[in-house]
């Protein structure tokens, strides 16, 4: 089963939920794999402090011009939707940082002058945090395209089917998020009881509805203002699966890098209870 943890708004507690859920499942002897798919700034490792054992480079294809064959016709530049190529008389220029690696320029070149080279844009790292299997993707600084790293991370999930897989997604609803959460069996939408939290939750709800992923909501920093979220959930018929109260105890643990369920075991029960509800509501339930 794959559970993805996402939010519209940033900073609502995706990583808090992912990490505490992983710890709670591991505490009940479940096999669990936590995947930090926020490849632009993976931070679940700050809480789990995993031992990373493997580092696999992620590359994308980029064009290379054979100057002996190129007659500067410009077909490649004309084809490229991302303006990664430009052709002048006697010069073909490549802008690798704009290339999405689609390979179209190789196909359209009438002289077979465009070849495929590769460029490393990040890594996938694998290791363990006690009994929790831990993977993360890291996009190199300055690289604009996160999706290939996320895709690489997810391409290997099929080999971990015996695990409950938790995907810690980036914030927002852009391409890297969609790549992270697609094909999940359940989506946990983490939000906070503020107007921003509600606004961005609505956007995230639209996305998971569009992707057809069963979903539920976690309200973090819950308290007096919960109504702003619970009313929306009622309207949209979305279950609120867990509330994490706004307390200085939880906040101070978080700020020192300690997942609260590690020191407050009653939270492991709450997260496990949520997991049971997720299992019931998920698309893999038979």
């Amino acid at each position: 089963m794959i559970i993805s943890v996402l939010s519209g708004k940033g900073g609502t507690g995706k990583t808090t939920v992912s990490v505490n859920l992983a710890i709670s499942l591991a505490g009940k002897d479940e096999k669990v794999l936590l995947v930090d798919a926020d490849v632009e700034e993976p931070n679940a490792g700050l809480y789990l402090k995993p031992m990373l054992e493997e580092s696999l480079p992620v590359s994308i294809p980029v064009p290379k011009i054979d100057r002996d064959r190129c007659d500067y016709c410009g077909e490649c530049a004309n084809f490229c939707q991302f303006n990664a190529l430009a052709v002048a008389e006697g010069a073909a220029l490549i802008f690798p940082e704009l290339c999405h690696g689609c390979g179209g320029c190789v196909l359209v070149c009438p002289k077979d002058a465009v070849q495929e080279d590769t460029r490393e844009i990040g890594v996938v790292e694998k290791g363990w945090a006690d009994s929790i299997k831990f993977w993360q993707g890291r996009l190199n600084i300055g690289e604009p395209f996160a999706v290939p790293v996320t895709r690489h991370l997810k391409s290997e999930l099929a080999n971990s089917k015996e695990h409950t897989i938790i995907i810690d997604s980036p914030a927002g609803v852009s391409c890297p998020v969609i790549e992270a959460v697609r094909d999940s069996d359940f989506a946990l939408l983490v939000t906070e009881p503020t107007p921003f939290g509600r606004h961005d939750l609505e956007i995230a709800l639209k996305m998971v509805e569009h992707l057809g992923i069963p979903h539920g909501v976690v309200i973090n920093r819950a308290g007096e203002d919960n109504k702003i979220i619970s009313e929306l959930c009622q309207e949209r018929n979305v279950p609120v699966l867990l509330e994490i109260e706004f307390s200085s105890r939880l906040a101070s643990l978080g700020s020192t890098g300690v997942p609260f369920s590690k020191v407050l075991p009653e939270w492991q029960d709450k997260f496990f209870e949520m997991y049971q509800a997720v299992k019931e509501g998920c698309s893999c339930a038979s």
Partner: protein
Amino acid sequence: MQIGVTAAGKDLESVVDSRFGRCAYFLLVDTETQEYEAVNNPGSSAGGGAGIKAAQAFLKSGAKALITGQPGPNAFKVLAAGGVKIFQAPGGKVSEVLDLYKNGELKEITTPGGPNRGHGSR
């Protein structure tokens, strides 16, 4: 000779657009006859790589000189590969900067500006 000016509008009374990659039009002006033609800049609507797209279109126009604000590094590379001389406009109307150009009062730009000066930065 033909010279291109980045412009906000389609005629010589339009203001010069200081952006290269995201300008609305290239005004292609014949410096002898003052005849001109406005060409849409396809870079203005590009998701990314606007400067490259604009520069590629500019090369196609055949003009060998350009008056603009300050092209970014990618556009500069493409324009330089095409042998285009670039002159910096102080602002004002197209007709005004053309006069400055004819009097030799515009400075030639030989180094690119910083990246992502336009609106298309990701």
